[in-house]
């Protein structure tokens, strides 16, 4: 039509990079395997940390966890005593951070984020409790909130919420980097 160009579909005004609206069966198979692989990794981390706690009691592993919120006055920062520290500005800053900070005052008074509090226990941060127990907050939250591949409805495995689509769902393969990102939850009712 225009010289050397053949009148193909894309050149006649069609879409070149077409993506089907639904996934094929092999695509769905690979997606299930990817979900199972992530579940397996989460269980490996969980059992490894539990075994670590069982073989090394938590009292000996406090050095590796996050810094404790409270420190006794007898503890020193390196080799400096509190009396020596209070003479310099940096030392005074170090001394002030050792006092326990109320979690309500973190985040400039807005309080802890949703999911940061242990359900059932009033005003206890999940990250602190996890650190004391030898696990990590991320793992505990994942195990509590995220479904495994067995528990997931097929609709949640292969589609995701989209407020613009007709049925408020679109294929999960349309999510950028969907093979390298965990997308398992959708708003309730959709």
């Amino acid at each position, binding site marked *: 039509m225009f010289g050397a160009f053949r009148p193909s579909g894309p050149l006649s005004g069609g879409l070149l990079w077409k993506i089907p609206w639904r996934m094929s069966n092999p695509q769905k198979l690979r997606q299930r395997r*990817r979900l199972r*692989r*992530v579940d397996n*990794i*989460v269980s*490996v*981390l969980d*059992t*490894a*940390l539990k*075994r*670590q706690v*069982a*073989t*090394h009691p938590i009292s000996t*592993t406090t050095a*590796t*966890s*996050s810094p404790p919120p409270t420190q006794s006055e007898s503890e020193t920062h390196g080799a400096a005593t509190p009396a020596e520290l209070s003479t310099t500005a940096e030392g005074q800053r170090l001394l002030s951070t050792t006092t326990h900070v109320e979690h309500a005052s973190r985040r400039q008074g807005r309080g802890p984020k949703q999911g940061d509090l242990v359900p059932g226990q009033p005003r206890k941060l999940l990250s602190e409790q996890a*650190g004391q127990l*030898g*696990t*990590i907050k*991320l*793992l505990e939250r*994942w195990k509590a909130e995220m479904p495994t591949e067995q528990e997931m409805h097929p609709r949640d495995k292969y589609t995701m919420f989209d407020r613009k689509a007709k049925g408020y769902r679109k294929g999960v393969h349309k999510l*950028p*980097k969907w*093979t*390298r*990102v*965990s997308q398992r939850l959708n708003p309730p009712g959709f």
Partner: protein
Amino acid sequence: MSLPTATNYFRITLLRSAIGLPKRTSGVLAALGLHKRLRTVYHPVSQTVAGQVFAVKELVDVQEVVQALSAREMRQLRQPESGFYVERRAGVRAGEGEGEEVEV
């Protein structure tokens, strides 16, 4: 499987790259020492490393092992048998040197 008394290790292998993902993800991979695909690193089991692996769990394969291998040891495990053995070296008299290297 009995509980070992020593510290276990995570055997972490990078399977998918972090190209196109937020820079935080490639930062975590760099912190773990995974700069190329299919490289394997060993890290002792701890909350820190577990959190790092959790951040990149979609890109990585993890096993819990007892022994940590160095890069040299991993390379030696990959080397195939040479398929020959040296009977005699030129310039070395019989009985001198370290003797034959007999390989099955």
